[in-house]
């Protein structure tokens, strides 16, 4: 894992045909957080020396077959999978999360919302593990306000995998109400156990249905998404000063 203190973090944002949050992610990482950001065309094989890869939201390949099922075979995904296997930080947001489960980089599956409706609104998320590369700038149990916009965000997995996710602290966020209670009413899509975001066992691949990149600009009122981006940046800048982070760093291959 590269460590750095003296330069910007390079965010690579993959662009699939049908991605529509690619510019938002680029704007959040680049213009708002002051890092460098590059678009990565899905047919290319060059990750342009990115430190962090973002698979953005949208409807890659029109959601044909299943959400994310075709995108996972795009040429650049070979490189993204290798990068992830080498310990590189990969974040899938919304459709990007769907691509990561289809690619087998994260466990489980995302099926049709239990309401059968496309849900587009702000939700509350409780931070379930504040000691990861994606959440170290959040407090454990903190309630974030971040929007969701999806029709297939209903997270499902088998009981054994669910148990392991829980035990290993791989559940990052749960849908909750304002007070942080994970009620069925606070669950916008019927996800198992109100799960809104997870990571892999190694702690370098992240998937979440809510859109942090849409909650970074003060113009859009809520800025809790910044904490996610700041956590990622922070995880590169100060790896040795946070004891919990050290083990996560060493976990990467």
């Amino acid at each position, binding site marked *: 894992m590269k460590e750095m203190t003296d330069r910007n973090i390079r965010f690579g944002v993959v662009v699939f045909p049908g991605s529509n949050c690619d510019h938002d992610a680029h704007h959040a990482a680049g213009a708002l957080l002051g890092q460098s950001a590059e678009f990565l065309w899905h047919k290319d094989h060059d990750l342009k020396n990115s430190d962090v890869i973002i698979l953005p939201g949208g409807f890659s390949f029109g959601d044909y*077959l*299943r959400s994310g*099922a075709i995108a996972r*075979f795009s040429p650049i995904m070979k490189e993204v999978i290798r990068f992830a296997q080498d310990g590189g930080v990969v974040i899938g947001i919304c459709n990007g999360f769907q691509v990561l*489960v*289809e690619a087998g980089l994260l*466990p*489980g*599956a995302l*099926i*049709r*919302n*239990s*309401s*059968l409706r496309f849900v587009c609104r702000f939700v509350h998320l409780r931070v379930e593990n504040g000691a990861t590369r994606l959440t170290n700038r959040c407090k454990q149990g903190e309630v974030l306000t971040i929007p969701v916009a999806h029709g297939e965000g*209903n997270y*499902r*997995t088998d009981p054994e995998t669910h148990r392991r996710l829980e035990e290993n602290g791989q559940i990052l966020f749960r849908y909750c109400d304002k007070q942080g209670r994970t009620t069925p009413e606070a669950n916008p899509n*019927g996800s198992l156990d109100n799960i809104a975001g997870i990571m892999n066992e190694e702690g370098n691949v992240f998937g979440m249905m809510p859109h942090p990149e849409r909650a970074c600009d003060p113009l859009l009122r809520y800025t809790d998404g910044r904490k996610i981006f700041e956590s990622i940046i922070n995880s590169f800048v100060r790896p040795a000063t946070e004891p919990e982070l050290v083990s996560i760093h060493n976990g990467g291959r």
Partner: protein
Amino acid sequence: MLQVFLAKVHVTLRKSILDPQGKAVEHAVATLGVVGVDEVRIGKYIEFRVDGKSEQEAREAAEQVCRKLLANPVMEDFSLVVEPQ
């Protein structure tokens, strides 16, 4: 000699997974007034041509397509029929 076969694939959500679309159709059936209908499951039907030296070989290729692309084994089952064309 290569022969051409037709692969017919049905993909459905696994029994253990709630099918919200199926449930919605089930409710519509009840509203329609037809009684005695339940366990509605919505799926996909896909067909494609596949070459092979034998039916066995064509079936193996078709199965690979089903397992790796057409169905997601985490949540879906598939059934495959391969027939000579």
